[in-house]
């Protein structure tokens, strides 16, 4: 049901690199799971509203005032995998070009 090509596409979207063996394994496992899920088509949901959350709360607001109760910038910066002083270092997102 899910081909290896589908798995390649999904892996790209999910930003996870897979080797050939993994692609085959996941295509089998995902197909099995999706097969089980197919039974939802039996259910008549024509006039049913979707539920995205069960609290019934909407628009939890607070006053537009600055609240600074977490002074943990140092701890956060310490976790950066690569940095230059307090700046987070990442690979280029734009290439030098003409």
């Amino acid at each position, binding site marked *: 049901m*899910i081909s290896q090509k*589908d*798995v390649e596409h*999904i*892996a790209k*979207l*999910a*930003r*996870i*690199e*897979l080797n050939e063996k993994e692609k085959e394994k*996941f295509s089998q*496992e*995902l197909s*099995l*799971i*999706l097969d*089980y*899920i197919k*039974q*939802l*088509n*039996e*259910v008549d*949901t024509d006039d*049913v*509203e*979707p*539920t*995205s*959350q*069960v*609290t019934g*709360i909407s628009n*939890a607001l*607070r006053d537009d005032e600055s609240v600074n109760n*977490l002074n*943990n910038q140092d*701890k*956060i910066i*310490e*976790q*950066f*995998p*690569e940095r230059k002083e307090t700046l*987070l*270092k*990442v*690979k*280029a*997102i734009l290439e030098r070009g003409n």
Partner: protein
Amino acid sequence: MEIKNLTIRDIQTGLDNNDFTGGELAAEYFASIKKENQKLNVYLSVFDDKEMKFDKKGELWGSFCAVKDNILIEDTIATAGSKILENYKATYSATVIRKLIGAGVNFLGKTNLDEFAMGSSTENSAFGPAKNPHDLKRVPGGSSGGSGAAVAAGLATFALGSDTGGSIRTPASFCGVVGLKPTYGRVSRHGLIAMGSSLDQIGSITKNVYDSALVLKTIAGRDPLDSTTAEIEVPDYTKELKKDIKGLKIGVPKEYFAVPAEALGEGGGRGLDPDVEKKIREAISIFKNLGAEIIDVSLPHSKYALAVYYIIMPCEVSANLARFDGIKYGYSVTGDNKQATSLLEVYEKSRAKGFGNEPRRRIMLGTYALSAGYYDAYYLKAQKVRTLIKKDFDEAFKKVDVIIGPTSPAPAFKIGEKEDPLSMYLADIYTVSHNLAGIPAISIPCGFIEKEGSKLPVGLQIAGKHFNEGTILRAAHNFEQALKNG
């Protein structure tokens, strides 16, 4: 000193009577952990070098808590059971942690779990499975297996876990202890590493129902840092326990005891274990003797709950785990130019190497179900059936106060027994609906059954209406006392 069975109240009484000091208790716990953890693998990190406080302040003073490793405690490692966070140091503490500290609790360490809370057995942990104290060849349940086993083995007074599809209740059931999943919105999720944001709840694993009520009283409440928490006042749940359950209307869903094929929506052989069913029926008799009224109810969409859960949860997972990308924290290949020269490679390789099989499986399932062309067929459809599942409970609760049933279809299985993902997912059959509907549910021990020479605990599940934890705790407490008094 026998600390194994001490409840929160036992400890406070003992400290008041000078039977022992806080320091002696701490030393005993750490000594036990040192002795047993190699065998049980329940703790991923132990706080034996941290300062403990023993002043008599706060309702839970004197007690020692084990915390599931997906709940943040500032300045300590939080792995979420994954290599991708193996060295991640939490930069803040979860709201529940701050509340427990205020209540006088000391923390013993972080417990083992299925990676990112994905699993029902703790076998998906990147740091090895935890073992069930009742039979070391069997799983303690999951994903809060470390927490469940720690409490059962007496390596903590109580523990914190998280429950998205049964992850507090299944370990409680397999390990023979009490596990409570509160109403969605009752307890703050701030500081809980998110899995399924519309399903997750933090809850406690305790030795008895009284401790469960006490801990809930402390951790529940509106939190401005979690907009999904309710404005509803937190009652003193312990006061509810004193009342009896005469006239309590208890619903028993017929679908829970249906022929296995019907109950699970597919071929039998994976149905309700007849020994478990016997224990649940005995429990129903006990409730009758306590004066409760047993009423048959129907939850017609029960059989679709698992399918709904295994679409909605992976979809939410795919969004929540996108943040683990090797950029700001966690495992990253970015420093190694042999491995990654582009930003895309940093993402793809950090995630491929950092995540185990189950997270990758669920991220991909969710990515697929949310992708263009499939969103309506899968995610939207699942959300609509979710509405029907919630409506089933709303209808049933017009006739009854609580709904009971088994927590798990069978007792603890053997490590390595469930080889394919689907057969593992089926272990959640009785627990996922409550997360989908957002209702509270507790698992309490209701006896033991024998399998291959081992005595294995069986869990009874009691579910209630939204924000009605008082009622399910009252039912649970009365049952627990009846079972104790024989």
